[in-house]
């Protein structure tokens, strides 16, 4: 058991080191791609809390990203805030929005909940478009440009903080309550876990993660308009979460890399006709679901098990 923990710590340390040193080997363009992977990592981590830990399916996390993205954009563009200073506000705004969505969501379950969050994903960009006085409407708001290195650093620093926060949260009482809710609502309720409180709380925390991701997304693109947070974004976040594997740290990284790097890699590949790109991407998603229904995390788990079995006992 301790051997396993130590091996795990080693692997995490090594991974953190690679993430920290990687940007120095990357071009500026690839650094900003790396920052986008961090964005998806953070939002998928957040989605994991609500879907992986309390079992509520959300197709609406693009909407929470929009909340955070607009909070950052408006504060920096119109009120002269430092962009880093907007991140706590963004998290708070996301938390609030998550609670607002989470409360009525108590009444819905399963597919109805999924479709209700889907409606939120579609509605929020429209609302942003409507109040163009604040949001710049379709013409959007342009933000200061940062170097790829800065963005990469910001993205992965946020990812590290989010990871630690999620870990602290999920190993404590709250995490146990979340899991109890997922496994059996009746059992959870009868053992004193307040369903409304924890289900809503999960939505709020999850949305806060998404909002911070949205803020960084906007900073990476140095631009925001409603099209940035379209339905595709929400769908990609969900695809990333499931392709990676719910409830797994490595799976979350794999899922984030999958939804960020694969589409843009295909789109900007010179060998493919652009019309074929969605066909390939969609087909890959289906094949992954057929082969590894529990996501990339499953593959990693199998690989790790094999590695452990093969290593000689000390």
């Amino acid at each position, binding site marked *: 058991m301790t051997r396993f923990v130590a091996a795990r710590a080693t692997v995490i340390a090594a991974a953190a080191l690679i993430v920290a040193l990687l940007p120095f080997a990357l071009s500026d363009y690839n650094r900003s791609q790396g920052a986008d992977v961090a964005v998806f990592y953070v939002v998928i981590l957040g989605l994991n809390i609500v*879907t992986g830990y309390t079992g509520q*399916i959300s197709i609406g996390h693009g909407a929470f990203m929009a909340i955070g993205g607009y909070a950052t954009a408006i504060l920096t563009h119109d009120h002269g805030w430092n962009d880093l200073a907007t991140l706590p506000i963004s998290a708070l705004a996301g938390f609030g929005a998550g609670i607002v969505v989470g409360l*009525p969501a*108590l*009444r*819905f*379950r*399963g*597919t*109805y909940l*999924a*479709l*209700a969050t*889907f*409606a*939120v994903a*579609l*509605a929020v960009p*429209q*609302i942003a*478009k*409507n109040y163009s006085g604040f949001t710049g409407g379709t013409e959007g708001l342009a933000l200061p440009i940062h170097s790829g290195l800065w963005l990469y650093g910001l993205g992965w620093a946020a990812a590290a903080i989010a990871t630690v926060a999620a870990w602290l949260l999920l190993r404590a009482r709250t995490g146990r309550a979340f899991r109890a809710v997922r496994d059996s*609502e*009746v059992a959870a*309720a009868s053992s004193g876990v307040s*369903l*409304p409180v924890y289900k809503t709380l999960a939505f709020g925390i999850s949305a806060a993660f998404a909002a911070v991701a949205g803020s960084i997304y906007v900073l990476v693109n140095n631009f925001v308009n409603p099209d940035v947070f379209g339905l595709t974004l929400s*769908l990609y976040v*969900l*695809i990333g979460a*499931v*392709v990676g594997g*719910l409830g797994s740290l490595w799976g979350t990284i794999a899922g984030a890399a999958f939804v960020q790097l694969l589409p843009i890699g295909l789109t900007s590949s010179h060998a493919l*006709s652009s*019309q*074929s*790109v*969605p*066909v*390939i*991407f*969609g*087909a*890959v*998603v*289906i094949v992954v*679901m*057929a082969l590894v*229904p529990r996501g990339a995390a499953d593959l990693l788990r199998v690989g790790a098990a094999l590695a452990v079995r093969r290593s000689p006992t000390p």
Partner: protein
Amino acid sequence: MTALSLTRTLPSGFRLRTSWLVPLLLAGGCIFLIVGGLSSSLFAQQTVSGLANGGIYASLAVALVLIYRATEVINFAQGALATFTTYIAWQLGDWGLSYWPAFVATLGLAFVGGMLVELVVIRPVERRGSVLTIVIASIGLLIAVEGSVGWIWGSQVKFMPSAFPAHVYRVGGVAFSLQDLGTIFVSIAAVIVLALFFRFTKLGLAMRASAVRPEAARLVGVRVSWMLSLGWGLAATLGAVSGMMAAASPSVLLQPSMMDGVLIYAFAAAVLGGLESPAGAVVGGLAIGVLLNLLGTYVGWVTPALLLPVAFVVMLVVLLVKPSGLFGGTRVRRV
């Protein structure tokens, strides 16, 4: 289990008796529309064109309901599959086939195609996956199928002829075409045919049994997996009808993304009606079509951008009162 845990989450005294609510709501809505239509021709025209759009949403919504009843999955690819089959109809017409033979051939191809999709895409995913993995696969299917339409037929808008004569009738100040009536008629007819099929044929019964009690159905010799394929085939056929009706109406043009907007409203319609009820899907579709038009016409603060959010809020309010939709039963589901 569902009902039990739900009541626990609510403060006591909040449970409404909703059985009388739905008929009352529908009757009230109809009276409102009739009185409004008689007193203003603008109102009447907006209602009629809303119903015409609603017919399109309704027909796709029925296809969604079919899949949901069979597999408890919302099929994100339903609209894209409908678009694909509509392009097949266009292609057959372009090759010289006249409308009705092309129509029938398309329905046949859609049925086979739907079954193939279930066989090639859904079944391998379903074997080891959860509802969530099937949903993701259907999103992958949406992306791939819509992309393939653009790849095969190009991005330019094409013209899809209508099944019905183009003649426009005018009653009072209100204009409507046979196309409008036809779309509504077809979606209602589809529901009736389906209801008869499920109730009175052996195959329909077997399909229902496989959806509700797969193990029991298997025991009495029903080939459950084939029933699922059949469900997808039927849904794809209905989707093809929906796509061909939609593309022939002036408000939807034949292009790769044509069903994107329709799918969203079809989702709303299916949820509003109760995901398991074809009749609910039709009522939901028509209601949403009319609601959008009337909100946009008469409610000043509902700007074009807010139309969609406001329609969703209305949908959510209905769901808050009746979480299983207007026509949704309280059937206990396998968990």
